[in-house]
């Protein structure tokens, strides 16, 4: 299936190659470079590229292109999903997935890639199994390794690989048994010029950090499961029980994982936590423009809005911005043409405002369209949909775990058209 993998950085340097079948010359990437050039923006590179003898399927993540070489028919999503899984594994192992960390840990990267695919077919992709096979690097271990000459390759057979619950390793032991769940909801919305909602929906995920000994069997129930419209689960969740009882029953993986993601049914009205009053105008003459943005709270359910950031992708002709912010700081990058206004906490008594002038390239025609604003925000201790976890029960183990649930609401793709 997957023949080879090439990692290419933003500058077009090929810095790692791995082959699972016969070696394919790296010149195959020339077709990719061609497409990359044509696309201008890295985001616009088509994910599937055809060459005379091969197909290149690529993803772009953390400023790295993962380019895989395919020779025969294969579902493209299969490859794309796998490449993302590779990137996530790197992130999991090294804290971040960047060119420098990959170069620094090239041996582990190679060992991982070797285990993840056999003859191009995924073999072990569960992080729990991989971690048993190849231990992630830590400062302490690498020091010990250099002194004692011991290795970071596991000596034992990963038990998970053989069991039917490959996501959990056997013999987990903790002195403090804890299970934490984060309910994170994101509001995706498009608001039009006048502030009316064109489109809004809520998507949520439940992230879990479970550190429980033995083989616990957990059941999570909601106060209002009817809210959930569409769900997708980690493989550990028993779908049948969800169907019949609307509870989430599972034997958890060890450590951090995403338990489920969900979508709130469309019948529920989406509360929009902030409103934006904006006025951006470009003058016909004098190659300048004016910008005036005010943000205020709308439906926040009595909670404070934090981490408020407004991002504006300015038209190409905007050279610089001379603005004045009543709260927070702003920054205009003349290269990427992105204006970022970092507000922070929203104070309902004193609304933050950003005002000032923009200077345009002289002689160029004024931009046709006003740029849209992207809003980022965070509200702690609130799930905007009203979803509430009822209880968490544990079976199969005797001890009493410590349990906790946290709610956060964030802005997802929250866009205001102007």
């Amino acid at each position, binding site marked *: 299936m997957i023949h080879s993998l090439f990692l290419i950085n933003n500058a077009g340097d090929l810095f790692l190659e791995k082959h699972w079948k016969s070696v394919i010359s790296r010149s195959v990437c020339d077709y990719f470079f061609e497409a990359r050039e044509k696309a201008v923006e890295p985001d616009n590179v088509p994910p599937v590229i055809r060459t005379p003898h091969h197909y290149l399927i690529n993803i772009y993540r953390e400023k790295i292109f993962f380019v895989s070489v395919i020779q025969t028919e294969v579902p493209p999503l299969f490859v794309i999903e796998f490449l993302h899984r590779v990137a996530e594994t790197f992130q999991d192992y090294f804290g971040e997935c960047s060119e420098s960390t990959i170069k620094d840990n090239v041996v582990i990267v190679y060992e991982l890639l070797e285990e993840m695919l056999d003859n191009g077919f995924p073999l072990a992709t569960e992080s729990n199994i991989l971690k048993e096979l190849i231990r992630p690097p830590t400062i302490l271990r690498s020091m010990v390794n250099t002194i004692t000459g011991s290795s970071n390759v596991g000596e034992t057979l990963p038990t998970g690989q053989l069991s039917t619950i490959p996501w959990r390793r056997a013999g987990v032991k903790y002195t403090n048994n804890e299970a934490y769940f984060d309910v994170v909801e994101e509001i995706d919305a498009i608001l039009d010029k006048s502030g009316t909602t064109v489109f809004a929906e809520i998507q949520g995920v439940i992230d879990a950090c479970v550190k429980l000994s033995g083989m616990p069997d957990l059941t999570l129930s909601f106060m209002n499961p009817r809210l959930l419209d*569409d*769900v997708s689960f980690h493989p550990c969740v028993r779908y049948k029980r969800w169907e019949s009882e609307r509870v989430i029953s599972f034997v958890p993986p060890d450590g951090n994982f995403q338990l489920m993601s969900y979508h709130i049914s469309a019948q529920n009205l989406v509360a929009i936590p902030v409103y934006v009053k904006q006025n951006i105008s470009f003058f016909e003459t004098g190659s300048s423009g004016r910008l005036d943005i005010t943000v205020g709270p709308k439906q926040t359910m009595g909670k404070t809005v934090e981490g408020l950031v407004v991002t504006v992708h300015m038209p190409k002709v905007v050279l610089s911005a001379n603005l004045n912010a009543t709260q927070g700081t702003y920054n205009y990058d003349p290269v990427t043409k992105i204006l970022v206004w970092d507000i922070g906490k929203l104070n309902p008594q004193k609304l933050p405002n950003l005002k000032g002038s923009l200077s345009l390239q002289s002689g160029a025609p004024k931009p046709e369209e006003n740029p849209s604003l992207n809003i980022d925000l965070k509200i702690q201790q609130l799930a905007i949909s009203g979803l509430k976890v009822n209880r968490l029960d544990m079976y199969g183990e005797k001890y009493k775990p410590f349990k906790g649930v946290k709610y956060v609401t964030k802005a997802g793709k929250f866009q205001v058209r102007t």
Partner: protein
Amino acid sequence: MLNHRFLCRNEDLKEMLESNKESLKLEAMKRIVGLIAKGKNASELFPAVVKNVASKNIELKKLVYVYLVRYAEEQQDLALLSISTFQRALKDPNQLIRASALRVLSSIRVPIIVPIMMLAIKEAATDLSPYVRKTAAHAIQKLYSLDPDQKEHLIEVIEKLLKDKSTLVAGSVVMAFEEVCPDRIDLIHKNYRKLCNLLVDVEEWGQVVIIHMLTRYARTQFVSPWREDAMFDENNEKAFYDSEEERKVEQTKPYIMDPDHRLLLRNTKPLLQSRNTAVVMAVSQLYWHLAPKHELSIITKSLVRLLRSHREVQYVVLQNIATMSIQRKGMFEPFMKSFYVRSTDATHIKTLKLEILTNLANEANISTILREFQTYVKSQDKAFAAATIQAIGRCATNISEVTDTCLNGLVLLLSNRDETVVAESVVVIKKLLQTQPSQHSDIIKHMAKLFDNITVPMARASILWLMGEYCEHVPKIAPDVLRKMAKTFTNEEDIVKLQIVNLAAKLYLTNSKQTKLLTQYILNLGKYDQNYDIRDRTRFIRQLIVPNEKSGALSKYARRILMAPKPAPVLQSAFKDRDRFQLGTLSHTLNSQASGYLELSDWPAVAPDQSVRNVEVVEPAGAPALRKSKTAKSNEKFYSDSEEEEEEEEEGSSSEESVSESESEENSDDSNKSSSSQSEKSSSESDSEKKKKTLKNKKLQQQKPDILIITYLPPQIMQKTLLLIIMTKYILIHIVLSISTQFFVNCMCSLLHLCVFLACQFDVVSWHVHVSLQASSPVFVPETSHELLHRMTGKGLSAQYRFTRQPCIYGNSMVSLQLTLSNSSDQALENIHISEKSSTGQNIHRFNAIERLEPQASVTVSMGVDFNDSTQAANFQLCTKEDEFSVSIQPAVGELLLPITMSEADFTKEQEHRAG
């Protein structure tokens, strides 16, 4: 110099490898792997590296493997040195070592070792460890690509591995099947149901492969569910499952879905909730290609969910939605807003979303869509704005109500500042006007006015073409435009020049008085143009329109040739015929056949023999000892019934899955008992790692199903429910109990005890039953009887049986049965009895032989069968004087139980004893 230094470095690597210190060797290997990763050549170190292949240090060994696999192909002779190590490792007691040895051995692409590989694969395919068998499945593909001549032998191995019941193996072997022999569909028949049932528990990558393979398989084996009158709903299906008698009648109905077809759809559905986008897409395409049209809607939500994922995922999913939305607008219309474009989307995502929105447009939503399009037209991304204008054009042609609105909107865009927008508008307006040959002279006039400001050649050419085509509508303006063009002719682009010549010719024919000289001037300019196309065209036009002696008969028809009504261009989606490819495939994404693409066949007109999928179910080889699972034998005669049995049984017995469904229905017979119905609705999907129990009820009786309970972990609750129900009501419980690991044995024991003890009809004292249990009389005894022997097969003798639900008089462990024998032949039957040899080993208390049964007479006898607390069918021979007929009785677990009455205090006491 550089080369020299490189050599030096390799020298010291060689030294390090040859040293005695493990740490030095490891360090050297790490550096070598670094070289390989960078794509540098390290092949000259081969001899030094290969020596370490038998190293004790696992990390060192693994790195050597990495190196070996990379360079063995180039250094075949030296690679052979390492083979013996792997051969030895293949016999290692540790399964991990066996597996990794096979992995590396099969990855060494050296043709000489093909026989060794073949042998190793054959051996590994029968290995006890499923992990090693999985590796064998992978090795099959490697060997096949190395030496395709081994195909026949490999197919044998594949056939063997396909029978494997482990979820670990399933995905890999199907992958090998797809690669080596995708046309050998006959290998799948026997494994079809098993694969369907295992699917949920196979790892996600295997799921994708299996689903794609099963889609192709189903297309060859089942008839199309898409027929006109194929109204097939859930009720219909149930009726089919339940009614064995009516089966034949039902078959005459227009369409009945094959139960295996339904099985596939049912078992893949939960996977729509998978976190893996490839799995969701695979199930979606399966539904698209296999499900009845009215069931398709369930995939919509899941596909829309995928749009939240990464950019690349969005790209592929949107493409598939685009293809789907052409054929079935209704599916995605409620989710229209999910396809609204954001300014931060990548361009190819934007255009795909636009495509889908256009496909979804209809009379009802067009105003919303057009309003949305208005925002897009203003986008800074000009390519996208142009695409939007084309989309508006398509909406305008498809929905006649809005054609005028769209046209007006586009005309407004003509005064847009941006040139690409204007140009695109002109081109689209041209197409629109062409489809609407009514009076649009205003728009043409307007465009003529704008003409001077438009510089994009395509747009200019379009306007000129419009002028010429409709010159009769604008008799005054057209000649004036031609005059202007004559002045600028030499500076125009080729495409514009051609249209100028065209316009001149058309005007010459309609209005020769005003334009004769102009035309001749232009034709002269064209005659000496640099471009040969233009010179050719000029020459042709001159001969056609200017009559002289040389011109033949053609010029008479000049007007008819040039001014002929032209068919309007059809504006249609680029995804129009993408559905010729299976959705979700690479070929679909590329819109051209990728190598190795396997065509999806059309539905067969007549379904092939469905009995090929019947399997004799055997106990899985590696079944844990503690498990109590039941197997059912399929029986030709009870086809539909036993079919379903078997299906359910398999779900239970395949150790990976247990599915249970529950329902409870109030028994109408006992009105005096209040709140007597207990139901515990739950279901489980559990794994052999955990304790697993499924109490499964089956509706034995069509009219009056009893209670049906399902209980799942934890044991305490389970016990309570179970006993409560027993106390209050007659129950039917279908118990499939499987435990796999020692881990939960303790907790399980109580449950196991309980179940066994129930099944033993409370007469086994070894469970320390201190309470005297009294069997209560059944509240309800079903009247329905089951067919044992049909009169056709029985040569006139027919037999029916029913469970009486009474304690059996023949023995405590026996279940009492009532047998009705009737003679429908025209001769009397003599000496009807049960043969002495009972085939399955159950203890059967036979009824006394019936001496003589007159024609049309019937007799009822009772007998007892000891089912050994299993649902194993009791097979025996029913004999007459002349013949012997093999028959079988398949009990449901519920029939094996004895009802008891118990006080609550006793119950509590009893419960304490079972606490485990």
